[in-house]
């Protein structure tokens, strides 16, 4: 620390550095110099107004740079990795969910009564469709895979919503059941569809992460997102509706995202995209008496739709770069 800075400036500098984490790394040292130069003699803490100003403006800068962050090469590479892992995770989650339902039912009734609730034709078609998406993606038929993913996603939404409404006999109850049966897989399915359509594709993703890392990411994310189903498979009487259970589910997803992170700019973007699947689970922890369950439903809808403009921004960046190079 230069001599003209008094001892208390070290404390102030430490506090400013914490606030400056809101800013891109390239701006922090420069801003720190400005903040310390403008500090009052003896000042040890940023004032509330200054702290709020620094945090808010840093956030604005970060958000403003998101299109560039996505449109960069690393953004497209991240989408390519997502197009590789997301369809596989969706297949595994569908299977886990089906298994959990069977385990829960088997815990309550004699097994011979389970025959009527074996997978329906519709459920089987959805699982097969997503298996086809995985295979077609690896065969470099990503546009066909994207079309199948989009169609099955739309049909899955409609089928589950219709079944929930019919089963409950009322629309508001149908929403609650919709929440219970359509969770993370819908957002991940939407991510899978848009990344297949608007990225270089799963083979590019495979070239970036390799088979071993890809399998680790798929296994880790399936375990995280499928945490409630896995627990119910092992312990069918587990209280899946409890807040603590849901919070554990959110934690499992967060850990899975962090653990399977690929180092570097591509990995950060992959984590950011996949973590979008965390939001519905977080929203589901909001007590239903506060928003009547609508919070989770709206978050699912919003996130599943918003991943598309994110992918489009990234794709347009790639097209612009290609046209400049051409």
């Amino acid at each position, binding site marked *: 620390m*230069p001599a003209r800075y008094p001892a208390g400036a070290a404390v102030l500098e430490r506090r400013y550095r914490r606030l400056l984490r809101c800013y891109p790394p390239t701006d922090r*040292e420069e801003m720190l*110099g*400005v903040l310390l*130069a403008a500090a009052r003699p003896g000042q040890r803490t940023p004032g509330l107004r200054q702290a709020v*100003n620094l945090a808010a403006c840093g956030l*604005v800068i970060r958000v*403003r740079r998101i299109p560039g962050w996505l449109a960069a090469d690393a953004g497209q590479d991240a989408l390519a990795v997502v197009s590789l892992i997301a369809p596989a995770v969706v297949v595994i989650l569908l299977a886990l969910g089906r298994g959990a339902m069977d385990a829960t039912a088997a815990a309550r009734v004699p097994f011979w009564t389970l025959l009527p609730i074996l997978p329906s034709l519709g459920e089987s078609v959805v699982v097969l469709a997503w298996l086809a998406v995985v295979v077609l993606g690896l065969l470099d038929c990503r546009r066909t895979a994207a079309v199948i993913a989009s169609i099955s996603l739309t049909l899955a939404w409609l089928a589950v919503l219709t079944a929930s409404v019919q089963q409950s006999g009322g629309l508001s109850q149908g929403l609650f059941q919709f929440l219970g049966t359509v969770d993370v897989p819908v957002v991940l399915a939407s991510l899978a569809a848009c990344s297949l359509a608007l990225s270089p594709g799963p083979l590019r993703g495979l070239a970036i992460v390799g088979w071993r890392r890809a399998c680790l990411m798929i296994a880790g994310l399936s375990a995280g997102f499928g945490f409630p189903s896995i627990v119910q498979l092992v312990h069918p009487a587990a209280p899946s509706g409890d807040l603590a259970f849901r919070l554990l589910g959110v934690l499992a997803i967060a850990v899975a995202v962090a653990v399977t992170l690929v180092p570097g700019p591509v990995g950060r973007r992959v984590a950011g995209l996949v973590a979008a699947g965390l939001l519905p689970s977080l929203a589901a922890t909001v007590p239903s008496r506060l928003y009547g369950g609508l919070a989770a439903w709206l978050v699912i809808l919003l996130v599943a739709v918003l991943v598309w403009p994110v992918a489009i921004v990234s794709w347009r960046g790639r097209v612009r770069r290609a046209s400049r190079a051409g």
Partner: protein
Amino acid sequence: MYEYDVKKRSMQEPTFLILTALAAGPQHGYGIITDAERISGGVTRLQTGTLYMALDRLRSAGLVEPDREEVADGRLRRYYRLTDEGAALLAAETRRRRARAAVAAQRLRARLAGGTA
């Protein structure tokens, strides 16, 4: 390329002060803050976050650009300069504000003289 439509929107005060401060020559962040305060007659003291949010936007729009970097008192100091596009936009904004000020001055003179313009 600047997408800001000068015919439809007025320039915000912090932006005007920053561009005016840089019109005199390249300055670093703290220099811009103190110069902007002097230009505004002591009325406006830019917060550091506001300054860098504006600089980020002005850089993206091509109105300012980094000039050079120095190390002073062990701290990194980055200087910014006004681009030709930034100078043109500042000139257009100055003309607009001068025109508005002229109308206000004329009406105030008429009011003082006992009539309305």
